[in-house]
């Protein structure tokens, strides 16, 4: 029997990363401050996990200025959306398997 644990994406092992991704798959773009507000996390924590997702090429970063304030927006890439979907499928399978036991 294949163990679907392997199918779980390592990049989503951290809960916050999965949460960020779930926001970005339903919204075209989301800015840093709104993410922070919604997830209720610190700047540093959020920034480091966004960096991690960016490294995986799961998200794209758009930097711009609103007046003088920097405004950073994030967007999920096709690769990121695909990975998110596969990860959810794997979670679903895990549940099914555990119910079958």
């Amino acid at each position, binding site marked *: 029997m294949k163990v679907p644990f392997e199918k779980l994406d390592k990049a989503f092992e951290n809960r916050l990363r999965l949460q960020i991704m779930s926001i970005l798959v339903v919204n075209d773009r989301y800015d840093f401050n709104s993410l922070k507000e919604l*997830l209720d996390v610190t700047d540093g924590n959020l920034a480091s996990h966004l960096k991690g997702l960016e490294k995986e090429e799961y998200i794209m970063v758009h930097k711009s200025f609103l007046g003088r304030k920097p405004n950073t927006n994030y967007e999920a890439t096709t690769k990121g959306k695909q990975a998110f979907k596969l990860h959810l499928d794997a979670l679903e399978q895990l549940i099914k398997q555990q119910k079958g036991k």
Partner: protein
Amino acid sequence: MEEKDIQNELSSIRSLMERSSKFISLSGLTGILAGVYALAGSAAAYFMLYGSSTGSEVNISLLVGIAVVVMLAALITALILTKSKAKKSGQPIWDRTSRTLLFQLATPLVIGGFFILILLSRGYYDIVAPVSLIFYGLALISASSFTYSDVRYLGIAEILAGLIAACLPTYGLLFWAIGFGVLHVIYGSVVYLKYGK
């Protein structure tokens, strides 16, 4: 990973997807009260138009005044009730989703508002009621992706009421009362029963 952990993970994902894209602090009570104001306004307009024995010419600016008062009362009620509901549910009232919702709502409303002013200035009074219903319906449909999806059905109903009203020119006030009064009360009651106060 335990099954419970996975379930928790999935439900947190689902809730974030909804909270990040939908503003759900709108209350059904707002709809009911807005409908009641509109009905009262329609009644006032009716007595003004048909109640006076003098039968003198219609005072348009007074009719517009009634409409504006109804709209302001509805807006203020919506603001107060939404604020208190958002506070209870812990959702911020002024965040990304509420801004998006407001923008989607305002675009057709502002355009419709200017269009109505043009119609009034050119003397096309009997088409104003259907036009206001149609633009309001369009505004609701455009906003519906960012809040309860039930809003879409209200929008469709408003547009239908507007189109029928456009075919029946002398019944403008009646359809205005149906569209802004009766439909709001029905919608508000449905939302109230479905999602609670």
